[in-house]
């Protein structure tokens, strides 16, 4: 299949210049949309009766080996009723601040997925209710592991990694502040 998904024409008609590019790779249509209107576009794709992309299959990010290329946030959408697939992408230039609006109020599944993207890539999701690290621990200091400038074995030496792991206050993980961690993180950018 090399034809564009019909959703692209509908998107172009609805959002015009906010739909930046569209192409087909390995049979799947990829639409690149403007970062500042991504949430509006994704909400429309979810709710429009002609689109009905009700399942956010996956939300992830891609960084290329080419340092000049922007980071991409990737939304894999599936419509259960129409049996249609669409991949929406948002490009984030590395020098312009890695921020994009959260879609966790559109799909609950985005809550943990966005936490993982923040954890692994350092992309912030504006309006996310609980943007904490999820796979790495909260005070992990080496950065965001899936970035290309992050070395495979970590930034710190082995001995420093061990020292940091052993120096943590264990009580902090089992305290009653645990439950109000969301409030405690209020000042986080």
């Amino acid at each position, binding site marked *: 299949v090399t034809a564009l998904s019909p959703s692209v024409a509908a998107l172009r008609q609805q959002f015009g210049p906010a739909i930046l590019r569209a192409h087909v790779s*390995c049979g799947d249509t990829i639409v690149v949309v403007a970062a500042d209107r991504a949430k509006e576009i994704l909400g429309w794709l979810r709710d429009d009766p002609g689109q009905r992309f009700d399942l956010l299959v996956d939300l992830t990010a891609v960084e*290329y080996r080419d340092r000049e290329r922007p980071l991409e946030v990737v939304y*894999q959408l599936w419509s*259960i009723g129409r049996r249609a697939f669409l991949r929406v992408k948002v490009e984030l230039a590395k020098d312009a601040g890695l921020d994009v609006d959260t879609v966790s109020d559109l799909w609950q599944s985005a809550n943990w997925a966005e936490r993982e993207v923040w954890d692994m890539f350092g992309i912030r999701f504006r309006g996310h209710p609980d943007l904490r690290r*999820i796979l790495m621990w909260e005070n992990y200091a080496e950065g965001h592991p899936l970035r290309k400038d992050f070395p495979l074995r970590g930034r710190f030496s082995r001995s420093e990694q061990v020292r940091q792991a052993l120096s943590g206050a264990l009580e902090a993980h089992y305290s009653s502040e645990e439950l*109000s961690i969301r*409030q405690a993180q209020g000042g986080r950018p």
Partner: protein
Amino acid sequence: VTATRQVVYELSRPEVDAAGAVQVRPLTVPLEDEGTLAAEHMLVNIGPQHPATHGVLRLVVELEGEAVVRVIPHVGYLHSGFEKLGEYRHYNQIIPLTDRNDYLAAPSNNVALAQAAEKLMGIEITPRCQVLRVIACEMARISSHLVWAGTTGIDIGAFTVFLWMFQEREKLYNLLEAWTGARLTTTLTRVGGLMADVPDGWTDELRRWCLAFPKVLDETEAMLSRNGIWLGRNLDVGVISGPDAVSFGLTGPNLRASGVPYDLRKDRPYLGYETYDFEVPIGEHGDCYDRYLVRMDEMRQSTRILLQALDRLPDGPINVADPRVILPPKSRAMADMEAMIFHFKQVMEGVAAPVGEAYSAVEGPRGELGYYFVSDGTAKPVRWRIRPAAFYNLAALPKMAEGHLLSDLIAINASVDVVMGEIDR
């Protein structure tokens, strides 16, 4: 899926507001009737080392009496950085990592990776390979569901199920071992084919097992489905509605138990699943009991698929006839100059994928198991992403468990069927 439904017990519930949401009282806020024990919320830490969390899952639970007010799951204790490691490996070298992803269904993961890489490279696999992969996927589904049924039985206090299920799983693992040499870490597929064909007489063994296995399911269901304790622990426990399940990105048996008929084998067929005659069991209440019924029925349907696959298993090669993708036999690589060059290039340089990206998913035992590759034209992917079904399923656990008893939380966690390898990756 049909069963007589009646509420066996009335359980106490924590306070709810007008909208039906559970009242959350943070520990940091002083309570009105301070000083009495009854008013105090208790904080219980379950895991990461606990038999009922099915691995290194940690749940921080806020309790009012015995009722769960809030659940906060903490994951990542098994994080191994698979996706990062994949960026430094050839496509075939990633396959051993996929075994360790969802270690209860390694063949599903092997197939998902090979399928995504083949989609990226535009490779069509052989008919025999297709059918063998179907067999591997369905064996993985059954053996994973058997572990689920057994451990859920233990969590709820039924030890017999565990023994019966693991007995059958043992037989399946013996078959997988005869095929691949390993029981859990099968590393079954290669890009463009399989690591080996099935040994002589293997298909007869599997057929014998397929004919005997439904009887075990019947006996298990006879023991559980109308069992008063089983009903009391499962009926109307951990309910999640269809729209909520879709919003949380649930897939697989958890989604279908809520009445949403989404199964990749039917909706986005791969490996020729559209040509097999089987049904997708759908629940309607979205509680633990429906999840149990759906999984039990799925094992029956998988057995049907296995028998059909055995009937149609064609002769022929298991690998594509492309020396750039498939390693030549060792004997030829040692004797024939051209074969040796292909052998050398594949081992040293790997197989380059064209520029592009491919997302390909299989219906794993826990739902949509998707592999997403982005290639810049080299032999190693720029990005390898696993779409982890269990990760999304676990994110819905607080939604299902809040408002129930602490003991129900254990039953709900079991019914969600988490596997930490896939969640933490």
